[in-house]
């Protein structure tokens, strides 16, 4: 897959992984595993970027006697997901048009 495209997709995937409930690092990786390959280091970079862009917030909570970071999606994070959905509706309609042409030949 194109690197720029994958980068954009990864951001959205991570946001989607925390959209229903707050999640933590390893949980996010497990959740995305069937869809997209994501290493620890890449996830760290994405989380950092999304935090700086204020698309998610971080809180630290105790779990089994140690600390764990939980990530919570913000309103602008949800707006990003909504933008993604709208963009891809457009792309999918183009996709259908392009593949339809191929079938007619």
């Amino acid at each position: 897959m194109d690197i720029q495209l994958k980068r954009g997709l990864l951001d959205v995937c991570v946001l989607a992984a925390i959209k229903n409930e707050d999640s933590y690092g390893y949980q996010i990786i497990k959740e995305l595993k069937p869809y997209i390959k994501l290493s620890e280091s890449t996830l760290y970079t994405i989380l950092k970027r999304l935090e700086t862009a204020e698309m998610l917030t971080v809180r630290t909570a105790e779990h089994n006697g140690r600390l764990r970071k939980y990530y919570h999606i913000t309103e602008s994070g949800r707006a990003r997901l909504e933008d993604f959905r709208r963009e891809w509706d457009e792309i999918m309609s183009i996709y259908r048009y392009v593949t339809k042409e191929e079938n007619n030949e």
Partner: protein
Amino acid sequence: MNKQEFLEALRQKLAGLPQEDRDERLNFYSEMIDDRMEEGLSEEEAVADVGSVDDVVTQIISDTPLSKLVKEKVKPKRRLRVWEIVLIVAGAPIWLSLLLAGAAVAFSLYLTLWSLIAALWAVDFALAMSFLYGCVSAVVFAVRGYGFSALATLGAGLFSAGAAVFLFFGCVAAAKGVVRLTKRIVLGIKSLFIRKEGSK
């Protein structure tokens, strides 16, 4: 490798990062390992699953802007004494010009690489043009009745065309090679800043 060894190795190799960044990274990997162990993996398996120390370090270095690494590197570990400041300022005409000269030399070497690539493309373009020229002059010769000359120029033209196609792949490969080299140089410069202090 157990968790403690992994984190310690990582800590040493990331000595060039600002303290705060480094601690945050280490906590992140520590949490990742703990979560895997909680799922039933052994400590060793959990560490191996997170990746090798070197891979992790390489990734972190390429994610960190060079400016941050340099800033951390040149930040004095203690307050400078007055005579040190005087020396640095007074010596500026010497060390600053040396530094600039060094950077200029490195930059011109790098530029040379790209001019070689440009030269390759120019040769390729010239070959393609001589194919066109060969075809045109072959027609002219043929019209005027010089059969052998027409054949000779046509042959030379075709030869150029073949060479141009052949060289084209070489040009593309060379350009890609320089791009790859650039990435490695940038990574190398960054690790220069991050590694030196790791041993102390």
